[in-house]
């Protein structure tokens, strides 16, 4: 697809803001075009196209931040109105003390091109693709029923022009493709539900690599077997192995979020919440020596991929926990000043009409050097939680809970029986201190991370290997 945005309108907005006496201005034109195909219970449902396209302006006036946005991005009169409004409202806030960290300026164009542009794949092929996945789900286990099935295929392209009063101009285009499904498996009147999500910054070629028919059939079979065979999980202080999807989610929820500096400072206090982490905990021990957690926006093809953030700062991997020590927080330019440091390019905005706030990209636990069998062989009696269903964590990100979906009893180093809904309810420091071994099997899952007000859902990967925790309390569901 041809790049469709014109940086002149961003330049106009910034120059106009500067003429109003602001200390800093940035404009972002963003075009998020999505196509969604829905297959509901085997039948094509409505297809949808959405184009979220517009311009936003952010100004800093004597320590007060004003933000305004309009979809009418090529209308200079409308741009004038939103610039004036942003300045007027910022001035009404007479007590602001915001500043932005000093950062290098860039003038960069970045275009990620998919190998196979989904725009060029026929509708027929897409519908066939979803129908085949649905068929594999139904036929996965002849003794089970899958009466409710939703499949979503999302193709997305994000074009951006970022322009600020310090000379930075970033022009970018990134494609994304994602698949979501929700299904219910029924066996002998008992039922359970499963949600699956995949996503990458690639084109149609990603779908082939995901091998969804086989994957979903496997998940349906696993759920069926679980309904048929699972026994009550043991309770008590046990050794536990958690699978990549769980360790990745835990890294996102209990490391990524509490290390967001806006939460630590209190900016998200009324919404997503604050953090159990204090600034003076930097460089202190939080986990065992084997734990390293990284957030890296630069992983090629990742769902959370970007090379420059939405404040024009160059992205890099962030080592949040390094060998058990809190190493680094996630910063945008606002929080960097408050913490006396530089931004590490964590500012993201989900659409043209959202302010850039501190976000994760691809958060994962670094792999260790064990094999899965080596993790297992050292456990006499424990539980392996391979996948999860329910989870949540408090708003300080201190007290978390994961309920296993596919989970196994471990006896004398072997997986012996399926167990039903084992619950892990544990504090973040206890969780990371309990990890004694990590295997080599790093896997990533796609997710949409929510934060901000109005809410901003941004694409991320969560990643992790299999992880062994010692003496963790397991509860029955």
């Amino acid at each position: 697809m041809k790049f469709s945005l014109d940086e002149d309108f961003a330049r106009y907005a910034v120059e106009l803001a500067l003429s109003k006496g602001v200390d800093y201005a940035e404009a972002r034109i963003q075009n998020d075009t999505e196509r969604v195909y829905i297959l509901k219970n085997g039948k094509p449902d409505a297809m949808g196209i959405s184009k979220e396209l517009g311009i936003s302006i952010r100004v800093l006036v004597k320590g007060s931040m004003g933000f305004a946005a309009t979809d009418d991005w090529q209308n200079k009169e409308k741009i004038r109105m939103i610039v004036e409004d942003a300045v007027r409202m910022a001035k009404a806030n007479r007590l602001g003390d915001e500043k932005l960290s000093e950062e290098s300026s860039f003038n960069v164009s970045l275009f990620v091109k998919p190998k196979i542009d989904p725009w060029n794949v026929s509708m027929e092929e897409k519908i066939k693709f979803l129908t085949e996945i649905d068929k594999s789900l139904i036929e996965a286990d002849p003794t089970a029923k899958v009466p409710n099935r939703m499949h979503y295929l999302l193709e997305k392209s994000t074009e951006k022009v970022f322009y600020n009063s310090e000379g930075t101009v970033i022009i970018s285009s990134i494609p994304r493709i994602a698949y979501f499904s929700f299904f219910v498996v029924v066996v002998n009147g008992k039922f359970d539900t499963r949600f699956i999500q995949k996503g990458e910054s690639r084109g149609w070629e990603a779908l082939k690599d995901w091998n969804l028919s086989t994957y979903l059939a496997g998940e349906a079979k696993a759920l069926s077997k679980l309904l048929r065979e699972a026994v009550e999980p043991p309770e008590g202080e046990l050794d536990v192995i958690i699978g990549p999807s769980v360790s990745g989610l835990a890294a996102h929820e209990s490391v990524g979020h509490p290390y967001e500096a806006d939460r630590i400072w209190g900016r998200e206090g009324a919404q997503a919440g604050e953090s159990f982490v204090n600034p003076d905990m930097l460089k202190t021990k939080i986990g065992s020596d084997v734990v390293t957690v990284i957030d890296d926006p630069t992983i090629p093809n990742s769902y959370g991929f970007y090379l420059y953030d939405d404040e024009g700062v160059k992205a890099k991997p962030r080592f949040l926990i390094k060998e058990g020590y809190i190493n680094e927080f996630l910063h945008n330019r606002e929080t960097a000043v408050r913490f006396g440091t530089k931004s590490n390019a964590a500012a993201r905005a989900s659409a043209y009409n959202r302010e850039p706030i501190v976000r994760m990209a691809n958060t994962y636990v670094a792999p260790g050097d064990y094999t899965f069998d080596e993790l297992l062989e050292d456990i006499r009696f424990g539980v392996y939680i391979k996948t999860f269903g329910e989870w949540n964590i408090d708003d300080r990100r201190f007290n978390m809970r994961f309920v296993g979906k596919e989970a196994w009893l471990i006896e004398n180093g072997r997986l012996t029986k399926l167990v039903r809904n084992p619950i892990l309810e544990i504090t973040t420091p206890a969780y990371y201190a309990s990890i004694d071994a990590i295997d080599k099997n790093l896997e990533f899952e796609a997710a949409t991370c929510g934060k901000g007000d109005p809410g901003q859902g941004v694409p991320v990967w969560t990643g992790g290997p299999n992880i062994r925790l010692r003496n963790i309390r397991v509860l029955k569901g």
Partner: protein
Amino acid sequence: MELSERKNEIIGLGEKLLAKLLDKGVDSVAILIDSHISRQVRFAVNQIVATKTWDETNIGVMIDKDKKVVVFEIGLASLSDIDEISNQLMMYIKNVPPREDYAPLPEPSMKYPELKDNWDENILKNPEMHVNLAFDVIDSGKKAGAKRMAGTLLSKAMFLCLITSNGSKLTQESTQVYLDVRAFMDKESTGHASIAGTKLSQIDASKVAEEAASTAKLSQKYQTIDPGRYDTFFTYDATAALLNLVGGATSAFAVETGQSFFIKKLHTNVAPEIVNLKDDPLFSGAYNSRAFDDEGSPTRANELIVSGELKTYLHNRFTAKKFGSELTGNAGWISPRAWNLVLEPGDQSINEMIENIRNGLVIHNVTYIRFQNYMAGDFSGIIRDGVFLVKNGEIAAAVRGLRLSDNTLRMLSNIIAIGKERRQIFHWWLEQNIPVLTAPIIVKDVNYTKAVK
């Protein structure tokens, strides 16, 4: 930035677009245009951290052809893409079979309900008032003893227009405003309060701030209690969060796709007799007031639960066809949804309700609700912003570290009291984004779990 000046322009735009799309040989078209000016003031750590303004016009289009349906949404500036987008959609239509649940757009009604008390000029005319209200909240909270105040004030003035090829030309203007406040004494001693309505004058900033601050102060002295089952008083905000789950589960789309705990529960008792819940976008000052749904059906108050019995699911034209039901006026183009839940009040004051609890809890807020099994209704959620142990009718101490871990159907059937005072609640983190006019409730034997290390 006068919204009123745009009305004729928007209607004209919709009509032009309708004619253009009909020329492409489609069977029917619906065009829904939402033009709005919104303002938000966000504050945290006792200061305003951002002011925001949105001036946007969103255009939604739904096209039917040969019993197939496609939708698209664009902004005003993307109208030049209409030909390309509609051509893509036509390609899709060519390649899919007709919908088995297809039903045509409903015929326009002879009469649509009138909306009451749903417009406030001040929202547009006095933008600085938003900033001043936020300062009021911060000052009032601090005066009431809070160390830090955080929150959001959001307002929206909206012109909505639905034009369909079968003759609907419907418009409405409405305003919305909510204030959502959290007070902190320290990281763990917090309080929360919120209020929603259609006019800035309904937002009693001081009262909401003082409520949040007083809860935060009360949260400082805490004790540890065992997990287990406790009779629980849920405040306005906490009840609104739980009723959002109920509202979401009444969507026939959720029922059809296995994402509802009300599957096969129609016309059965899902709650005790004291529970009466409706979806009503028409009461005076309803935050999400709507006179017509997205397909052009008139809206109405739908009784969802009457004396404990689940009476209906909420429908759009497709789910109504599939379920053999009449339209309920709740159409979204993909999924029907509740507009504004209303819980019928009971007869007890808050004090009377708490006095009746021997050994239980008071909970001010439930967030981060996640289901283990949607159809069964098994879920857990984070409780925060004021969790108190009640002993013999009196608040004994704050409690920390518990997690609500129960089942929606069990909790519904265990409601034993409903308060007589109601408040309209809306903030962005309600699970289904449904505003709720609610009283507090007491649910018996609610289950709580806890991390031990």
